[in-house]
């Protein structure tokens, strides 16, 4: 059959190259690429046959491809691709975010060719992570994402961008190194016949529970830093605050999702017994991240930094939902990843626009912007309300399911995340009170409402937030077309 997934990757690759070469008109090429990519994802959705269940104890994938890559007998690496509901949902997210980001940064004047090229490259890496079904291939894309992001932060970023870029690169690289050790040990200690997901999946149970636990921990660390988990999160605020808007959008919208996806696909599914052993650790970390992210956000004066910390809180909930380790929890986790992808992207775009409209992101020094910039204010409102988990907006169904699952597993511990919901609401509402409402303050004469392309870019996301908030079931049915549906729970 036609290798559609390779075609998708090829599209982005070619698009990237062309964008790099096309100088001034780069944005058009990038836009075209994003549309083609969108179309391909739509095609994937249309012809997605649903989940084929297990064969020989190994989960099946759609649109599978596999070609020999490195065969040394002891080292059997293949180029293996495939998707199920989980990857598909995240592909949809990627497509939406890519389009929105390209449109939003339409006005980029600083080396546009490189800018748009790197944007596409980042998305390429993420797509690769979502469709790769081979340990090496997965890790390859996983690492490949770092490089373009490094340049995006370092070249287009804010005043401390150099420091932030290097910190981001080194910090996350160290994490992926630990993860790589875990993956290699997983392959070789379980005597898997190849690096393919299937053979690893089949071989893993042969490992002793203790080994599984250690492997799970090492993988968890690798994926966790991407989440990020407290206390290994400090790369995130710097990276976000210094990164250019488009960079933050992809960083929060996609890169953080890699961690969640990896944890589910490569750790939870493959090492359920090890997972069971270390589950308490995950709970503790998750609670810490939820509480810490939210409480620290409350103290931030910089809008962007606040949103960054709220990401820690939300990804903490994702982690909690995963840690619950039930079918329901995993469903919630993926749903929430999608939701957070959309919402945080919207919020980062908003703070970017705030920055170049009012010349500062300091919440306390700008006020009453609503009359002057109604559209921007509306976007901020939608973003904030969605992010604090308001029903009818995308985050709610996800958080609701997540907490429902948590109650099922942890009973009254759920009060902690529930209580934190109030704090989360507090800092968003407080921010809106100070920035959007009240008498006008600190608004330069030059300030005018958003340019059209930014409005469209954010509009796409806002629309997504509302549509999927009213009809989350579109996503749910897709996500459950995966091993999640029958995950026995640990």
């Amino acid at each position, binding site marked *: 059959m036609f290798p559609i997934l390779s075609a998708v990757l090829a599209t982005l690759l070619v698009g990237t190259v062309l964008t790099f070469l096309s100088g001034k008109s780069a944005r058009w090429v990038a836009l075209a690429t994003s549309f083609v990519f969108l179309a391909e994802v739509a095609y994937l959705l249309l012809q997605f046959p649903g989940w084929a269940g297990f064969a020989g104890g190994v989960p099946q994938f759609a649109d599978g491809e596999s070609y020999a890559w490195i065969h040394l007998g002891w080292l059997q690496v293949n180029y293996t691709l495939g998707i199920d509901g989980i990857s598909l949902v995240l592909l949809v997210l990627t497509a939406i975010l890519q389009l929105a980001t390209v449109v939003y940064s339409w006005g980029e004047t600083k080396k546009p060719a490189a800018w748009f090229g790197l944007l596409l490259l980042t998305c390429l890496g993420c797509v690769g992570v979502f469709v790769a079904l081979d340990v090496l291939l997965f890790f390859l894309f996983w690492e490949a994402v770092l490089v373009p992001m490094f340049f995006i932060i370092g070249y287009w970023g804010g005043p401390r961008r150099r420091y932030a870029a290097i910190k981001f690169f080194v*910090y996350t690289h160290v994490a992926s190194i630990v993860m790589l050790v875990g993956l290699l040990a997983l392959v070789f200690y379980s005597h898997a016949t190849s690096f393919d997901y299937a053979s690893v999946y089949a071989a893993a149970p042969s490992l002793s529970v203790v080994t599984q636990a250690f492997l799970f921990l090492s993988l968890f660390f690798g994926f966790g830093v991407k989440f990020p988990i407290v206390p290994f999160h*400090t790369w995130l605020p710097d990276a976000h605050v210094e990164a250019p808007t488009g960079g933050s959008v992809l960083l929060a919208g996609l890169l953080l999702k890699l961690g969640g996806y990896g944890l589910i696909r490569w750790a939870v599914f493959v090492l359920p017994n090890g997972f069971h052993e270390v589950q308490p650790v995950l709970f503790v970390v998750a609670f810490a991240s939820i509480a810490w992210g939210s409480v620290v956000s409350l103290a931030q004066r910089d809008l962007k930094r606040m949103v960054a910390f709220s990401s820690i809180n939300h990804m903490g909930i994702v982690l909690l939902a995963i840690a619950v380790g*039930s079918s*329901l929890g995993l469903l919630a986790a993926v749903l929430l990843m999608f939701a957070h992808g959309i919402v945080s992207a919207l919020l980062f775009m908003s703070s970017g626009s705030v920055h170049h409209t009012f010349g500062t992101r300091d919440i306390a020094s700008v006020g009453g912007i609503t*009359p002057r910039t109604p559209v921007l204010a509306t976007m901020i409102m939608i973003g904030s309300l969605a992010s604090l988990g308001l029903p009818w907006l995308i985050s709610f169904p996800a958080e*609701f399911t997540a907490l429902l699952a948590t109650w*099922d597993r942890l009973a009254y511990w759920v009060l902690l995340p529930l209580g934190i919901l*109030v704090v989360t609401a507090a800092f968003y509402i407080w921010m809106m*009170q100070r920035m959007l409402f009240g008498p006008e303050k600190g608004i330069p004469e030059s300030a005018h409402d958003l340019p059209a392309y930014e409005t469209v870019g954010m509009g796409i996301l806002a629309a997504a937030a509302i549509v999927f908030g009213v009809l989350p079931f579109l996503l749910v049915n897709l996500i459950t077309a995966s091993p999640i549906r029958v995950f*026995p729970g640990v």
Partner: protein
Amino acid sequence: MDAFLLLDQWAFLIPLLMVVSFALVGLFGTRLRALEWGGWAAVGIGGIAMVLGVGIAIGEMLHPGTYVNAQYTWLHLAGTPGPFPEGISLVAGTLVDPLSALMLLVVTVVGFLVLLYSIGYMHHDRGLPRYYAELSLFLAAMTGLVLSNNLLEFFLFWELVGVCSYFLIGFYYEKPSAASAAKEAFLVTRIGDVLFLLGIFIYFFHFATTGPSGGWAANGFVFAHGTSPFLPTGSVGSSTLLTIAGLMILGGAAGKSAQFPLHVWLPDAMEGPTTVSALIHAATMVAAGVYLLAVTSVFIGFTATDQLAIVAVGGFTTFFAATMAVVHPDIKRVIAYSTISQLGYMVMAVGAGFAMVGLFHLFTHAFFKALLFLAAGSVIHALGTQDLFKMGGLRKPMRVTGTAFAIGGLALAGIPPFAGFWSKDDILGSMYGELGSHPLYWPFWILALLAVFLTAYYIFRAWFLAFGGNGPRDPTLPPAHEGSWVMQVPLVILSGMAVFGGLLIFVPGFQGLLLYGAGASGIPPVYGPTDLALSGISVTLGAAGIGVAYWLWGNGRIFVLPESSPLQPVRRLLLNRYYLKAAYDWVGARAVYGIARGADFVDRYVIDGTVHGFERAFGAASDRLRRGQTGVVSDYAAYVIAGLLGVFVLLLLVAPYLLAHLGGT
């Protein structure tokens, strides 16, 4: 006849219509040349909605106790391993039953009247389209909430009304006080919502497999099945878990219905336009909490402990809020406190198991409280101030308003035959019946009784201050005048309801409505001697209250509490709202924010500091080593020799040791 039941199938049109209105006004409102047009559109659609609502209510009256459940499945997850073996399905649907019919009547009627009134009240405001859009959205959400046929859907609308209230309170967002009031309202109710969520969780899991056809989860957690509650009545028993669930529900209700201790937001919510206060913060949204309790008690049920807790909260709030109303100088806030207090009555009734009695008071209260607010609204509209002590002698220039306010006051004070009398007495009477079996209800019942006196006192204190005497006390005020007809018509209609609304209980259909469900006892015309005695007492208390008010404030008198009076500290305590607001502000602004700042510091300098520590450590090591590169060749040669010796140590000592003790490879 059955045309009405047919109508029930189309109940979902009501929220839908209001959504349309929302979209219409929201998107094109600003395009319309005369902003009022947007308003009129909303009023028109609201009218249609009202007709539908009234129709449905009538239908329910003609066929008391029927359920009409219209739903379609949104999502069905086949049985997953874990908590929901039968699978989950989520449904969207409408349920028309006595409860919702009554609520629907209130919401649509008051809603329409307020929409109409606003045309006049808001005409000068440039934010008119936004106003009507938000109001329409609110009505959509509120009717949706009323018609919800399952707990999840209920919660969705529950939150939506909250947001609308948030935006409407902050309607004059450029006013800092309004912005902060909106924030406060959102956050305080949010606390309730969170508890509510937990309650939902507990119910979902506990009853996942209870009930017919595959259990509750498989049927979308709907309230009703056929013509009876889905969950078999009495399935609650007295389990601790469900007790906690019930308390969580109470928490949610307390947040929305501004019950102690989550009441602080409602008085401040008066920053919104008076119309909003009338509709949302008197008649409908704040009543949603009571409605939630009623629905829960009917379809799920409370344990005895829950009931006691609910009664306690309600009864205490009734009195507690009334005391604060006694001293307040702001006309709107007085009414706001009275709202809290009246909601307390309803909560108490529902808690004691008289859902319909509570809703009956909700019904009457909605009208006379809306009336009071709208009346106050026209006063504010005319004078531009809310301070009672500046007003005075308004009864002459504003006859309609003055009368309306008086009628509302009488109804509130529970003077027969005005509406309030019937419902409030009903509550006190039916509660009294329970006192025997539940002695613990006594104190709260007594508090509620005392509140009757306070109620009558403060509302007429307000009336005398505003309308009594001759001429305003503050000469700078503009000359008062009546509002346009759009403002007067609603006042008249509502006055009508405030006068006769209570008498509806003698109408068989309506009675049938009220007779439905638990707590059928004690509803007129089942008047026994005790009831009469009780009525006597409460009426006397009410009259006394009015009398005292006249004695202190009548004919333009101003009663000033002497500085020496032992009551001064009490007065201060009341004026400062028992310092609860201050306490909350302290917790919010000092404690929580302080913790946050501390956490931020730790994050920057301890956690991130550690990262930098690693950086520095490596740097230091690098420096040390680099100093070894002296550039002197004999040093390098020395290193080589040292290395040679090191290799010998490795080969002859270290490696053998490791091999011997660690077993090597």
